[in-house]
C-alpha cells in the first residue's frame, strides 16, 4: 500500500488527540486523548519499520516500548486524578489552578 495511507491515518489520530487535550476539561478525557496521540505515534513507527524493512525491527521494538511507557503513564495519571478527586471533589482540570499566577 502507499506509505502515505498509514501516515495520514496517524496524523489524523494525533490531531484528534491534540484537540481532545486542548478542548476537554475532564481529566480522564485528557488522558484518553493522550492515549490517542501515543497510538498515532505507534502507527507511524510501525509503518516506517515496514517501509524501510530494517533488519533490527527498530520501529516495532520502539512501538512496544511506547505501549509499556503509556501503560505506566496512564496508571500514574489516574492515581493523580483519583487523589485530586478525593481532595477537591472535582475532576475539572480548570479548577486545579493553585500553582497558577
Amino acid at each position, binding site marked *: *500500500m*502507499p*506509505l*502515505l*495511507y*498509514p501516515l495520514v*491515518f496517524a*496524523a489524523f*489520530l*494525533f*490531531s*484528534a*488527540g*491534540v*484537540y*481532545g487535550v*486542548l*478542548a*476537554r*476539561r*475532564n481529566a*480522564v*478525557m485528557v488522558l*484518553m*486523548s493522550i*492515549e*490517542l496521540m501515543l*497510538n498515532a505515534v*505507534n*502507527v507511524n513507527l*510501525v*509503518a516506517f*519499520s*515496514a*517501509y524501510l*524493512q530494517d533488519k*533490527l*525491527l*527498530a520501529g*516495532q*521494538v520502539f*512501538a*512496544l*516500548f511506547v*505501549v*509499556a*511507557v503509556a*501503560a*505506566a503513564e*496512564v*496508571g*500514574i495519571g*489516574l*492515581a*493523580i*486524578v*483519583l487523589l485530586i*478527586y478525593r481532595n477537591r471533589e472535582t*475532576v*475539572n482540570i480548570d479548577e486545579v489552578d493553585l500553582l497558577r499566577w
Partner: protein
Amino acid sequence: MNGQEIAFLALAVVGGLAGLFVVTSRNVVHAALWLVVALSSVAGVFLLLAAPFVAFVQVIIYVGAIVVLILFGIMLTRAPVGRRVFDNSLRARIGALVIGGGMFAMLTWFMVDAWSGERITNRAPTTTEALGNAIFRNYVLPFEAVSVLLLAALIGAIVLARRD
C-alpha cells in the same frame, strides 16, 4: 486498489471516526468505548503492516488493560455519567479545532511533500521469534530500563492512591 488497501481504508475510516468521537463525545463512558474501537482499528492496521506481535500486544495491553483502567478511573471519580458533561467554552473549542486542524493540515502537507510516491512492499509478517531476537540482542538495555520504569510506576500508583 488491492484487497490490502481496501481493508486499510475501511480500518482507517472506522478508526478515524472513532478517534473523532472519543474527543467530541458528551458522555465520558461513551468516549472510553469509542476509544476501544479506535485502539482496535489501530491493532488491525498493525496486522496489515506485517506486525502481528505488536497488534496482539496492542489489543491485550491497550484495550484489555488501559481502557479498563480508564473506566475504573471514570467510575471512581464519579464523572457525570449520562448527564451533560462540563466542557470548555465555545471559543476555547474553536481555538482547539483550529490548532488540531492546522496540525493535521501541516503534517499531511509535509508528508505528501516527502513521501508522495513511496509504497510499502509486501513481505512476510514479522515473527515473534525475530522480534524477541531483536529485543534481547539489540535492545536489552532499554528493555531493562522499561522494566524499572514499570516497577516505579506500579509502586508510585499504589503509594499515591492508597488511603491512610
